[in-house]
């Protein structure tokens, strides 16, 4: 007999919490900020129920720091914030990159610089990629539905553990608050990836020596392995002040442990693209508006489809390059003034005509505006 499906009506922020619990996150430190606060509130209920720990810190700097502290202790840890809070976290995110500490940061976007306003946008697509100083590679996932808030949170946790990097889930004020159906799996059956532990005996262990995966084994504190985690550029032993060759080596390794997986990491959804002459490139909540417009356009006989990157970073350059050879026109639609637009232009090896539809008034993209653009091109 088939087991009955467990379908629940959930809010985007709530789905993030359930995804985290399902993925094995057992530590959360955060600070209230609209529109991410429900994550903080909900996980404060859920974590102790499963033996996990929740702490509200004094600010966002402390929140990400406590998350790293817990992760170093061997516990899967996460925080959630919005743009202004993310701005406070960026130095410590750089620390997580160089020290190679797994963690997940959920960024629920609002609109505008400074305190902005608590309405939706996609204005942090670039800042999530480049905010912290220094050269680095990280991973950013962009859900477009409540279902994906659940699924991609699990994926984010697993990727952070696998690569020992901070992974970002880029949500927005609208997605955070809408309610949709989610088919919830049995949490015991969810695939959970754990960081690799050292494979050498303790006396041979060097904290930053990696095998061919480029990811060093990470022991738990309190084990027979002497842990040493450092914020500075270091050699394999964690020693400060490596030579120029060693500096190049460590930075290359940090880049390559991500870049070596470009065949697998960038996830892209293709929708009605098989026979399309025109493609709309859009992601997150904005892609939902695009899908609505596509149905009308198709009914009018326009051959148009959607390419939706689910992984924003690393950018799915290869998929976009191929697309530029397949279609004559690409309409880039984002709820900002053009951020991934530049990446699409850089990937335009097929010389497709690129046009842009932006919106940054704090309101979700109007499908009519996409439709108008499609009609103009078509």
């Amino acid at each position, binding site marked *: 007999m088939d087991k009955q499906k467990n379908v629940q009506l959930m809010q985007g922020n709530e789905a993030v919490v359930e995804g985290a619990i399902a993925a094995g996150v057992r530590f959360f430190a955060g600070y209230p900020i609209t529109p991410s606060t429900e994550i903080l509130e909900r996980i404060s209920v859920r974590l102790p129920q499963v033996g996990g720990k929740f702490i509200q810190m004094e600010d966002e700097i*402390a929140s990400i*720091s*406590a998350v790293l*502290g817990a992760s170093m*202790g061997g516990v899967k*840890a996460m925080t959630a914030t919005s743009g202004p809070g993310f701005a406070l976290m960026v130095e410590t995110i750089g*620390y997580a990159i160089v020290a190679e500490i797994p963690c997940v940061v959920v960024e629920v976007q609002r609109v505008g610089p400074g305190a902005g306003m608590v309405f939706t946008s996609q204005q942090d697509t670039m800042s999530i990629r480049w905010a912290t100083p220094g050269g680095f590679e990280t991973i950013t996932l962009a859900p477009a539905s409540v279902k994906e808030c659940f699924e991609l949170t699990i994926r984010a946790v697993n990727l952070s553990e696998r690569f020992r990097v901070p992974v970002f889930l880029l949500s927005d004020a609208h997605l955070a608050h809408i309610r949709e159906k989610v088919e919830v799996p049995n949490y015991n059956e969810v695939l959970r990836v754990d960081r690799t532990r050292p494979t050498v005996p303790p006396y041979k262990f060097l904290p930053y020596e990696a095998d061919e995966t480029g990811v060093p084994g990470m022991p738990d504190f*309190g084990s027979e392995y002497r*842990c040493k985690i450092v914020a500075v550029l270091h050699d394999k032993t964690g020693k400060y002040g490596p030579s120029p060759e060693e500096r190049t080596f460590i930075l290359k390794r940090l880049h390559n442990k991500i870049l070596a997986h470009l065949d697998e990491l960038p996830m892209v959804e293709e929708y009605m693209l098989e026979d399309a002459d025109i493609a709309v490139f859009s992601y997150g909540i904005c892609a939902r508006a695009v899908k609505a417009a596509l149905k009308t356009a198709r009914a009018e006989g326009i051959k148009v489809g959607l390419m939706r990157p689910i992984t924003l970073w690393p950018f799915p350059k290869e998929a976009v390059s191929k697309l530029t050879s397949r279609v004559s026109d690409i309409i880039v639609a984002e709820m900002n003034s053009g951020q991934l637009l530049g990446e699409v232009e850089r990937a335009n090896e097929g010389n497709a005509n690129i046009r842009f539809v932006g919106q940054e008034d704090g309101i979700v993209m109007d499908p009519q505006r996409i439709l108008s653009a499609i009609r103009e091109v078509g």
Partner: protein
Amino acid sequence: MAKIAPLAEIVEKQIDMLTYGQWGICAGCGGGIVVQALARAVDTIGIPNKDIVILNGIHCSGSQAASLKCNFIGGLHGRSIAYATGLKFARPDLTVITVQGDGDAVGIGGNHFIHAARRNSDITVVVNNNFIYGRTGGQYGPTTPKGAFATSAPYGTVDRPIDICKLAESAGATFVARGTTYHVIELVDILEKAIRHHGFSVLDIITQCPTAFGRYNPSLMGNSTTEMLKWMRDHSVRIDKAKGIGTQELEGKLVIGVFVDKEAPVYEDEYEKIIQAAKKVK
């Protein structure tokens, strides 16, 4: 007070000589004395090194704490207490000690210091208080005395200094003490008490910086290691004696000893009760 073991014995047992010295400090710095005292305290208490985590911010004196044969977290400037809060909360079985400078602990990291004290997290905070930002070449910091000179205070500071012990006490720390690098035997003893204490412990260690603070302020503590250590000897008043002395007479003196040593609910223990309650509700 425990028997003082020979230095060579402590070094052999507690210090990894391969990493000692890679964290360059100036001649005459008090940081080495603090690390030696820490190594002795750890040795006396007898906690296995694998269960101890030393956290370090960005500062000079005491950054050799990385050479203790314990686990080590070298963090960003001012954030050690915030990492320690998460680490101790997630792993209450570990002994968590931060070794920081005065700027690291109560300047850039002041907010974390206050709030960890308020929560009474079971962390030991060891502050190397040398009255100056030494690592960056001698700028004035949160504990620099008013009127002292620094590379960023060429005409003398206008700022009033913060008293780390008073701050810790008022924020809710349950163990607060001050020692100096002159009173070494006492320092080991206080460190031992601080680490053993269940709750948030703060140790304000007055340490000499002849290179920056001494050089710019020879009239305050002297400008050599020996002069500065002698100054500590001559200006320290033990807390029990200080109680009988008026505030005016204590002006310019260093009150040393244990200011606060009390029991109070500890954050990690209190949250464990939450977990037990939440599991029942589910």
